[in-house]
């Protein structure tokens, strides 16, 4: 067990770039324990990369918000994804707006297309595909700028960045 812990520790600390990125995320929000509701809007796979088994690996995960100018979560939205091989899968956002898929249930072949995000009869899609980063927040960071469209949200146009 000691050997396992040592090995896991070594794996987790051998990438200073990753370690710095994880540190930059900061601590947990007050009153929110690690779990499906934690850290909305952050790049999930940065930690959930399966490197050590804890936290568990995710294949694609992110957060959907109710609008472009609000951080209110879009709860109960259905996210439909399509792999390059044509296979589709869906995930539903939770109370924090988070959704996630695990490698054992969905191991996508990139590029992956976000076919739709549906909530209450409204549907939005994504302009471009996902090239290889399973964290929505790997690209969708706030504030919007030349290198980011901002967080994922519903809009009246039917198109979400």
């Amino acid at each position, binding site marked *: 067990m000691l050997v396992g812990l040592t090995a896991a520790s070594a794996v987790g600390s051998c990438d200073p770039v990753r370690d710095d990125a994880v540190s930059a995320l900061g601590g947990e929000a007050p009153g929110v324990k690690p779990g499906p509701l934690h850290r909305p809007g952050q790049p999930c796979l940065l930690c959930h990369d399966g490197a050590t088994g804890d936290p568990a690996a995710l294949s694609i995960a992110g957060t959907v918000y109710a609008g472009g100018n609000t951080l209110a979560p879009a709860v109960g939205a259905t996210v439909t994804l399509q792999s*390059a091989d044509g296979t589709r899968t869906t995930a539903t956002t939770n109370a924090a707006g988070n959704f996630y898929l695990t490698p054992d249930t969905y191991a996508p072949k990139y590029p992956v297309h976000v076919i739709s995000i549906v909530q209450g009869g409204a549907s939005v899609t994504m302009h471009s*595909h996902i090239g290889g980063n399973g964290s929505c927040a*790997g690209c969708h960071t706030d504030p919007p*700028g030349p*290198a*980011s469209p901002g967080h994922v949200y519903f809009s009246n146009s039917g198109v979400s*960045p």
Partner: protein
Amino acid sequence: MTNSRLVSHLLAATIGAVAFACSVPASDARFDEQTPDSGSFPPVAAMLVQACGTLDCHGTVGRNLRLYGDTGLRYSATDVPSTLVPTTPDEVAQDYESVVGLEPEITSEVVASGGANPERLTLYRKALGLESHKGGAVVVHGDPRDVCITTWLQGHADASACTAALTLP
């Protein structure tokens, strides 16, 4: 051999090596670069942006092949990806510089030979998946993306193929 002779020989060898290392091309030597057609590049840029330029791939400032475009990295500080603002002429120009600047000598050779053996280019080998590429094989011999890029290297991009390439997943 005496010590003084040995020192003399070493000195001569060192001077010779330095002289050789410091030799420079003749002042009138020129590299005549033959660049691919910039006039027919815009549809090629559109294809590249769609296929390769997402924000998690080549739409990133850290990439050698850095691509700007409407759905990826924006060139203007005031533009935002995926906001229905079309790819700008400045972005197309930057994309052109990115592509031709990757391997200018080899690109020049390929263009000079009428686009023959485009596999000489790392860009093309990676796109086909012939060389290690995180994005895998995004071009298949004979598909619209392939026709788009190879006709451009031959002299004039097949715009219809480039447009057709935009429908590929």
